[in-house]
Every structure is written in C-alpha cells, then in structure tokens.
C-alpha cells in the first residue's frame, strides 16, 4: 500500500516574465487505482506529470510519496526513488535505440543492480509476454512499430515492480486499434501489480478506461470524479 499526495502545488516558468502553469493543485492517489488527468488545452498536464514523477519541482507546495516529502530528498535519493518506486511511460516511448527490446526492459533493473540473473531475465520476458511482444525481444526499437515500441516502454516501466506508474499521453502516437489494446493493458496492470496508475492525456476516450477522471483547465483542477463506466 502506497500513497501519493500533492499539497498546494503551484508551478511557474520564468523567462522574460513569469508564466504560471499550475495553480494550487491538491490531489491524492492510493494503490490499486487507475486515474486519468485530462487536460484538453495544453501544457499543464505534462508539467503536473513531471512534478508527480519527481522530474520537476513545484514553485511552491509539496509532493509527498509514501509519507516522505520529496523536497527533503537530494538528487541521488530522488534518482533512487524514481528507479525503485516509479515507472514512466512517455508519449514518445524514449527507448534506447542502441539496445534490443529485451535489454530496454532490463535497463531499470540494471540501473540499481548490475547482475542480470535468470529470474530477472525471466521477469523481463514475462512482461514482454504480457504486453504481447515476446517474439520481438531481440529486435532493436527502430525495427518495430510505434505500438510495439509503446508496449516495450510499458514492460520497461513495470520491470522494477514500481508502486506508481505514470503514463504521459501513452497512446498519443498510436492508431485507434493499438490505443484500444494499450488501454486494455492498463486495467490488467492495475489488477496484477496493485499500483497507483496515473494516465495523463488530452483524450477522453483514453480517460474512459480509468476509474477516476481528474480534469484540468488552465492549470487548475476543475473536476475530480469517479468513472462509473470503467
């Protein structure tokens, strides 16, 4: 059981003038839930995802992961937290093109443990099997389709058995059929891995697959409701 909370999170970017992006965001998430953050307009949702994922820091407010305020952590502790606790699935997949599909899935494990034991390899293969691309394990990312790359990224996000999975526009570049399959995977992952699963999207059709839909407009939470139809 793990919790993630955002208390009064504000975020501004500073260029020639201050550009506020997020205003007073208060949210909390629990294990075994699949939530979506929907923002049809623009930039706020990715910023929020980066803050939840500890890649970015709020201008004010606090992010608390499992009772620990992340503002208390140094760079190294944050890197460890991301590696062990959070799995990322990005819109552009961000696989390492120099490594095979299987090696890409193994990387989160190799970051904290250089030993690649048989159980570890077995787990990576099980995950590839779960997302339906085990037969592609020795292919390089440029040799497979966008949907297959996204499935690889999902398997990679699950490798370290993270408590929190963040997916930023995970179907953004996929066709509708692949989108349907990827969304189907989210429900299965939530059930099997008991995680906090947060999908950030502009697409209501994707959000419809989640238990809870949080809508953001112009940097503010405008609605936060349970999805009865999921």
């Amino acid at each position: 059981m793990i919790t993630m909370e955002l208390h009064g999170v504000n975020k501004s970017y500073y260029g020639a003038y201050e550009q506020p992006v997020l205003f007073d965001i208060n949210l909390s998430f629990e294990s075994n839930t699949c939530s979506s953050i929907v923002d049809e307009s623009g930039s706020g949702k990715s910023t929020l995802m980066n803050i939840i994922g500890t890649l970015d820091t709020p201008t004010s407010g606090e992010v608390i992961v499992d009772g620990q305020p992340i503002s208390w952590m140094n760079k190294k502790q944050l890197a460890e937290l991301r590696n062990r606790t959070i799995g990322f699935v990005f819109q552009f997949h961000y696989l390492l093109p120099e490594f095979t599909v299987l090696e890409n899935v193994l990387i989160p494990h190799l970051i904290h443990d250089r030993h690649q034991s048989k159980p570890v390899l077995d787990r990576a293969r099980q995950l590839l099997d779960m997302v339906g691309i085990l037969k592609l394990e020795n292919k390089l990312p440029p040799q497979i389709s966008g949907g297959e790359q996204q499935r690889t990224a999902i398997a990679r996000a699950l490798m370290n058995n993270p408590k929190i999975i963040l997916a930023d526009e995970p179907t953004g570049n996929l066709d509708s059929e692949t989108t349907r399959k990827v969304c189907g995977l989210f429900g299965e992952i939530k059930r099997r891995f008991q995680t906090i699963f947060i999908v950030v999207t502009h697409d209501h059709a994707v959000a419809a697959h989640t238990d809870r839909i949080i809508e953001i407009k112009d940097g503010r939470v405008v609605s936060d409701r349970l999805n009865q139809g999921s």
Partner: protein
Amino acid sequence: MLSLKIATRFLKSGRGQTVLIIFGIAIAVSVQVFVGLLIIGLQLSLIESTIGGQPQITIRPAGDTSAIRDWEAIIYRIRDTAGLDVISVTASGNALVADNNSTLPVVIRGVDFQSADQIYGISEAIYRGGPGTSRKEVIIGRDLAEELELDVGDKLPVLVPDGGVNIFEIAGFYDLGVGNINRTWVIANLVTAQRLFGYGDRISEIIMTLDESRLFAADEIAAGIEAALANEDIEVTNWKAQNEELLSGLEGQSISSGVIQGVVLASVVVAISSVLSITVLQKSRQLGILKAMGIADRDASLIFVFQGLLIGLIGAVVGIALGLGLLQAFNTFTASPEGTALVDIYIDYNFILRSWLIAVASSTLAGLIPARRSLRLNPVDVIREG
C-alpha cells in the same frame, strides 16, 4: 556494469564517428612511437659508438703518482659495487717501434687478457693469428701492421724511454674499429708491460664497464667508488664526465622529442573532448530517459569516461602497430644499397608501454569534460522537447 555497456553501445551506434576518432588517436600515438623510438635508436647508436667497447669508469693515478699500488686491494673493495659488470687492469706506457727507416710512437698496453677481452672484445677483433701465449708475444692493430708491412710471426723491436730495446714476436693482428687504436696500441701481457716500464707490481689503470641498465648512472657509481676508496693517490673518471657535450646534445634531443610528443598528445585530448562533447548532445535523449529512470549522475557521467577509455585503449594499440610499421618502412626506404639501416632501431618496450599508458590515460581524462557536461543535462528538458 551498465555505464560501460551503454558506452560500448553508443560507440557502436556511431560507428563512423568512432572509427574516425580512434584513427585520430592512432595517428597521434603512431607519431609518438615513431619519433620516440627513432630518437631512442639514434641516441643509443651515438652512445654505443662513443662508449661501446671501452671502459665506462676508469681509476687512474692522481697528481704526481705515475702508477697505482695495491691495486688488488682496491679491486677487492670495489668489486661488489652495484652496477659494475667487468673490472680489469692495464699497465701502459709510451714506446717507439722501429722499422727499417723510421720509428713510430705506440702505446704498449699490458692487459689481463681474459678480463680485458670482455671490455674491448679483443679476441673477436683478431683477424689473423691469435692472442699470443708467451710474455714475448704481442698483438698489433691493422693500421700499424699495414704501415710497417709486418706479418704474423715477425719480430717487432720496441724502444722504451729508458733507452732499452726489446724484441717481441707478433702473435696476431686485431681490428677494434677505431683507427687511432689500430695504429697505436700494442697489446701485450700485463707482466710484460709492468717489467718493460719498471712498474714492479703496480699498474696504470683499473678499468670497468657497467651493466647496460646502469650506463647512465656512471657518474653516481664513480662517485660512490671514489668515496668508498677515499684515496688521494687515485682519481675516478667516468664516461659521462668525459662526454659532457654529447650528453647535453642528447638531452636537447630528448627535450625536443618530448615537446613534439606533448603537443601531439594535447591535440588528441582536445579532439577527443570535443567529439565526446558532441556525443553528449547527440545522446541527450537517451541520457534524459536514463536519468528519468533513475540512473545516478555519477553513472551517467561514467558513460563518457568509459567512452574515452575504450577509444583510448583501441586507438593506442592501433597507433603503436602503425608507429612500428612506420619505423619498419622508414628503415627499408632509407637503407643503404648494401642494406644497412640508416638508424639502428631499438624497440624499447618500456617506452612503448609508457606511450600506451599515457594515451589511454589522456583519452580517459578527455572523457571527463563531456562527463561534466552530462551532469548539467536535465531529463525534464529532454522530455518536454519530445
């Protein structure tokens, strides 16, 4: 180790760039090895021609003393000095040899044949006759033999300063490769020379050679011997003191060779740093995602240090092979029509190992600059840019 694995894959994925940079290092290392070994070869042949076949430390009578007494005791005291190879003694004196119409000045060098042979290589230099077995026999050099038109077995009258004439028999001819020696040295038995010049049991020189690795410590060893003997009647000289100009020439040569090698090395470091810095930009997506997945900054930086190390390792090996090939080609193309090399090449393994280590260390060091750059890379910037 993940950093090493990623470094290897990055290098493989940019194959053209990697080959080019390895080639750059190889060229630089080959220049180093070529210039370095050529100069080492030149210096060694210069030294060989200067001190080869000659003693490197000599003990002579000092001041008014004309000969060394108690030389057996002196040898007994110095024989275990570290670095000494062969110790021998000579009893020498000026004399004249007469032919039908004229006389020629010579030096009668009485030697202990066995030990002197190890220093001068006399037995190898004898091209006719033999070294002689009796006290009445001498051997003379090629130039003197030709000038006096003598043959093995002929008699050689020798006039010593006190007016006496001694007749010796010529046992053989030698050629020590130095005209002056071939013309003036009449090599005789030690006791013969001692009697000829009235030395009694005294001698005129104790001569020594050094172990090859200790040649350049001749001054230190000579000073050590002088201090150990603490005898005012003798002086200890060494080849370095007698060849200061040669040594300063060699030092100048070494410095200029070092400067060339340093400049080449510096340009390699700059080149590697700039190429690897470009790879930080090229691989910023990959680095960003690795950081997002929790790779520690230190491990991300290590990727570039390992890239420097790997290209250094390979580049240096290729460079050494190339340098040795260049030397071989140089020797072939500059050889005389008889096939004699212009410079005797000496493959100094220590020098090669040192060049390799310096190249690898510099290349690794060059990886530190892009490694530092990679620390500044923020994963959010990469993810935001898409």
